């Protein structure tokens, strides 16, 4: 696992040669400039892909909900209605921007910006593949928890600044819900840190394997429960149904973005869909083996040795496989999130708090204790290894 995408590129000779060539051309040491350009390009690409995924997320949401409710869904713009999100984007840009007269204008403008900053900053540590991780910070997951809490502030400010009663109620509910569910989510992540021995997403993924029985979700019974605690907490943190109380349309009109029109509303929606993707990615990296590919195909050694390809091509084929593995898992979770939204009824506000403080938090604490004892007792082995050892012992030590 390289430290960042720049380190990944640095291991190739071609990249080194390019740096020295550009340095000679410009007459100064260009490695800093190249680093910046690599990061900027990668960040730009990632942001654009994420915006695309966010846009397609709205399309998928409508199409899947239509499937579930036996409707057609969008099918006019582009093939199968695929370009619907572009049409929506154009519509949002063309809409009149209305400022409520009593609103706090500064905060009204600032709220979508804060939401977007918080969500975009989380993309920096998302491990798409072992090479294509913008930066594998040592404090990865802790940093992610920190910056994603900006979204809570943004939701609150969005509700507050409009000076409308619906918005205010939605904002208060949203912020309190987001911070409440951060408690079980943080404790669950803590138990993953306990097992992987590091806070970076690199160490999360590297301590798992490519096959399902090597994933943390099937590592032991406690992590299996922990995954569902994390998933429920994740739904609540992104204000998805059945926890979409902050924007409950049957009681609060549209919650904290009632007064937002046009592009500002669009930015809030974009931030929400990208955040769902990011948290699905975190779930995939922490529990479902992240970018790991079975048979160690991901590091590309096999292609070099068996097919006789040059090292650079073999490695990059491995990267593509890893990216595919990560995206498959993440998009599957994304599908489940949408599926859940259109299956369960919305729950009441007091039930939201009861689920968080009386069910998820105690369960998460119990899991933490259980995983601590498991790692201590079985030296970090998974349940399958423990069972096979026991079985092996019973049959007279068949190693």
């Amino acid at each position, binding site marked *: 696992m390289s*430290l960042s995408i*720049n380190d990944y590129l640095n291991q190739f000779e071609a990249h080194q040669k390019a740096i020295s060539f550009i340095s000679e051309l410009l007459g100064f040491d260009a490695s800093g400039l190249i680093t910046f350009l690599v*990061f900027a390009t990668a960040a730009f690409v990632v*942001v654009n892909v994420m*915006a695309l995924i966010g846009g397609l997320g709205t399309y998928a949401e409508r199409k899947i909900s239509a499937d579930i409710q036996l409707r057609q869904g969008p099918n006019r713009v582009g093939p199968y209605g695929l370009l619907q999100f572009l049409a929506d984007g154009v519509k949002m*840009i*063309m*809409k*009149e*921007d*209305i*400022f409520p*007269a*009593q609103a706090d204008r500064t905060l009204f*403008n600032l709220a*979508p*910006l804060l939401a977007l*900053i918080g969500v*975009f*900053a989380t*993309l*920096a540590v998302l491990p798409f593949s072992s090479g294509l991780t*913008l*930066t*594998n*910070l*040592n404090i990865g997951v*802790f940093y992610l928890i920190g910056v994603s809490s900006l979204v809570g502030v943004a939701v609150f400010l969005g509700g*507050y600044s409009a*000076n*409308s*009663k*619906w*918005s*205010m109620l939605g904002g208060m509910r949203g*912020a*309190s819900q987001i*911070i*409440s569910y951060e*408690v079980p989510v943080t*404790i669950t992540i*803590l*138990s993953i840190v*306990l097992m992987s*021995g590091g806070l970076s997403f690199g160490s999360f993924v590297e301590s798992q394997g490519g096959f399902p029985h090597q994933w943390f979700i099937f590592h032991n019974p406690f992590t299996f429960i922990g995954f569902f605690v994390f998933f429920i907490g994740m739904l609540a943190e992104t204000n998805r149904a059945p926890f979409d109380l902050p924007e409950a349309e049957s009681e609060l*009109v549209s919650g904290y973005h*009632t*007064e937002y029109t046009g*592009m500002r509303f669009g930015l809030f929606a974009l931030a929400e869909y990208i955040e769902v993707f990011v948290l699905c990615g975190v779930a995939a990296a922490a529990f479902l083996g992240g970018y790991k590919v079975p048979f160690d195909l991901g590091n590309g050694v096999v292609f070099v040795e068996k097919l006789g390809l040059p090292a650079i091509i073999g490695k990059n084929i491995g990267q593509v496989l890893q990216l595919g593995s990560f995206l498959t898992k993440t998009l599957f979770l994304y599908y489940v999130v949408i599926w859940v939204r259109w299956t369960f009824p919305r729950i009441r506000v*007091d039930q939201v*708090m009861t689920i968080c*403080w*009386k069910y998820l938090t*105690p369960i998460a*604490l119990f899991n933490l*204790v259980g995983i601590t*004892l498991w790692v*201590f007792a079985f*030296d*970090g082995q998974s349940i399958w290894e423990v069972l096979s050892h026991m079985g092996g012992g019973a049959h007279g030590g068949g190693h």
Partner: protein
Amino acid sequence: MTSYTLDVYMPVIILMALAVGLVVVSVFVAQILRPFKPNALKEQAYECGEDPVGTAWSNFNVRFYVVSLIFIVFDVEGALMFPVAAIFRKFVAIGEGAVLVGSLLVFISVLVFGIIYCWSKGDLDWVRSFQLSEDQVNQLKGSEEKA
């Protein structure tokens, strides 16, 4: 423990700048394209067709505040436990795991005790019972009768 330079934070700054850029550009483009004809009715806060009465900025229930206080307690707990959790595997590997299990369990159990206390006193309920006890009801009745 690999060493790193500050370059690892570069994507963070770039991504934040991209977020700011996206907002500025999209709002600016929208500003050029969209119509702008405000009137008093449009600028009213939406209240399902009724004229809004007063401001929305009113005193809110104290329970939101309590939730965030309890949240901060757990946040600090997490911040203290993350570094200990990160070295757990290494200590288990060198056979000193018992020390960490002990200190972690003591740490967690103190907090679990706190949760049990709050739970049993009803502080985790969202809808609080404000019912008076029988004695208090009788007291109030007595004072009413006197009046």
